[in-house]
């Protein structure tokens, strides 16, 4: 028996009793792990001694139902043999459970990753859409600023012809042309388009081109082939078949007040 064994001998009893804790317990357990031939039998004897405390208790018979219930549990569990009866079977079951767990975990992980990728793509698409919108808006603003910078520019408001409708537009008409900016105008029905008209002072409608609104009900349209502003009485927008018509086929949905002379 070496010096350490001599020291640890004092701990056999407390250890067997379950009161040893902290570094002392750790020291003894580490020592026992190396299979010490001196200490193992000593600890075994101490554990044996604690059995005396169990046997010293006044003996009482448990109620009969405890055994009945126990045997019922055993019978239920007996549909599968005790775990050691066929260790390979349990090993196989354990392996299958582990495999299923791994597969389930893997599938879950893949599914999770797919979902993450999908969400990320959606977020990217949304971000791209916002960037596009912002860029489009900036381009429109820059174009509007370019129109406004010119001298001899008139700003012409167009209002819905029906009072209960909220859509409207603004036209900037300068030397370089006319820029129409539409707000809150729903997209035209299928096979239809909006058409801008310049109504001359002799009440002749001149087509200024066709346009469609975006999903937000907005449009920025640069008109072409306009009559001279001085010859124009007012501006109007009609809903026409796709491609537009040489003359309006329906009443205007919005119109400007008479354009004042510059």
């Amino acid at each position, binding site marked *: 028996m070496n010096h350490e064994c001599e020291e640890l001998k*004092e701990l*056999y*009893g*407390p250890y*067997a*009793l*379950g*009161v040893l*804790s902290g570094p002392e317990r750790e020291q003894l357990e580490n020592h*026992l792990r190396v299979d010490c031939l001196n200490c*193992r039998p000593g*600890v*075994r*004897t*101490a*554990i*044996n*001694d*604690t*059995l*005396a*405390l*169990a*046997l*010293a*208790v*006044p*003996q*009482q*018979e*448990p*109620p009969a*139902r*405890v*055994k009945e*219930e*126990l*045997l019922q*549990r*055993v*019978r239920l*569990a*007996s549909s599968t*043999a*005790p*775990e*050691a*009866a066929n*260790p390979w079977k349990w090993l196989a079951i354990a392996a299958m459970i582990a495999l299923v767990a791994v597969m389930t975990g893997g599938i879950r992980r893949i599914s999770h990753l797919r979902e993450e990728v999908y969400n990320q793509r959606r977020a990217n698409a949304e971000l791209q859409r916002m960037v596009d919108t912002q860029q489009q808006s900036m381009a429109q603003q820059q174009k509007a600023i370019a129109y406004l910078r010119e001298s001899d520019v008139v700003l012409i408001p167009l209002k819905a012809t029906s009072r209960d409708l909220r859509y409207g537009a603004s036209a900037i008409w300068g030397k370089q042309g006319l820029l129409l900016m539409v707000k809150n105008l729903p997209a035209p029905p299928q096979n239809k388009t909006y058409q801008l008209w310049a109504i001359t002072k002799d009440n002749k409608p001149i087509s200024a081109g066709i346009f469609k609104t975006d999903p937000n009900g907005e449009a920025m349209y640069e008109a072409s082939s306009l009559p001279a502003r001085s010859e124009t009485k007012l501006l109007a927008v009609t809903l026409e078949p796709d491609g537009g018509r040489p003359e309006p086929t329906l009443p205007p949905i919005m119109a400007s007040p008479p354009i004042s002379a510059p």
Partner: protein
Amino acid sequence: MSITALYATLLTAKTGGPLVGIFHLGSTRMDLQTDKLSSSTDMELVASMKSGDSRAVSTLYERHARVVYSLALRILQISTDAEEVTQDTFFQMWQQAGRIDQNRGSVLAWLVMVARSRAIDRLRSRRKFRVEISDERLDNPNPFGIPSAWEEIESGERAGIVERALREIPAEQREVLELAYYEGMSQAEIAERVKQPIGTIKTRVRLGMKKLRQSLAALVGDYESRM
């Protein structure tokens, strides 16, 4: 000797042949097997459990349920809790029969250690104390094995020996052993309970266990010399 065993003996004497084949009818055959289980050692019963014989649980229960239940009741003080611990302990043995190493100790020691661990675990849950007994002890409650000397002693004699051994331990040392064993207290908790320095408690635990060892050795030796 049971009637079945007596009948079997008579038949054996008459025919001179083996019993197998003579008692082939269900219930009689079953009785013979049950008798065989009754005379099996604890380890043989555990081996029967390993091969799926649930009747071995019944036999083992008959043998040791009193000790297990009485200890659980002493620790928990509530009969329904003690009943549950008893049932769970034997069911655990049925489930883990394959893991019990017959070279490592007795079945009774295994049952007692599992029952105590379970009971103290419950006790501490009630008190909301941290469980000192590690998972390792619960999973493998008999890591070093226990000699079967206790099982060799007839139960009536055994109770007497234990009682005398404990009586020989000084009262203050016995109190500490009982608080640790039956109430699962740590040495610090015992020190607080009995209002003594922890160093004193450690000394009492050491001396108490040493005295228990000496008394048991002397008493068991005395018993064996009389046999």
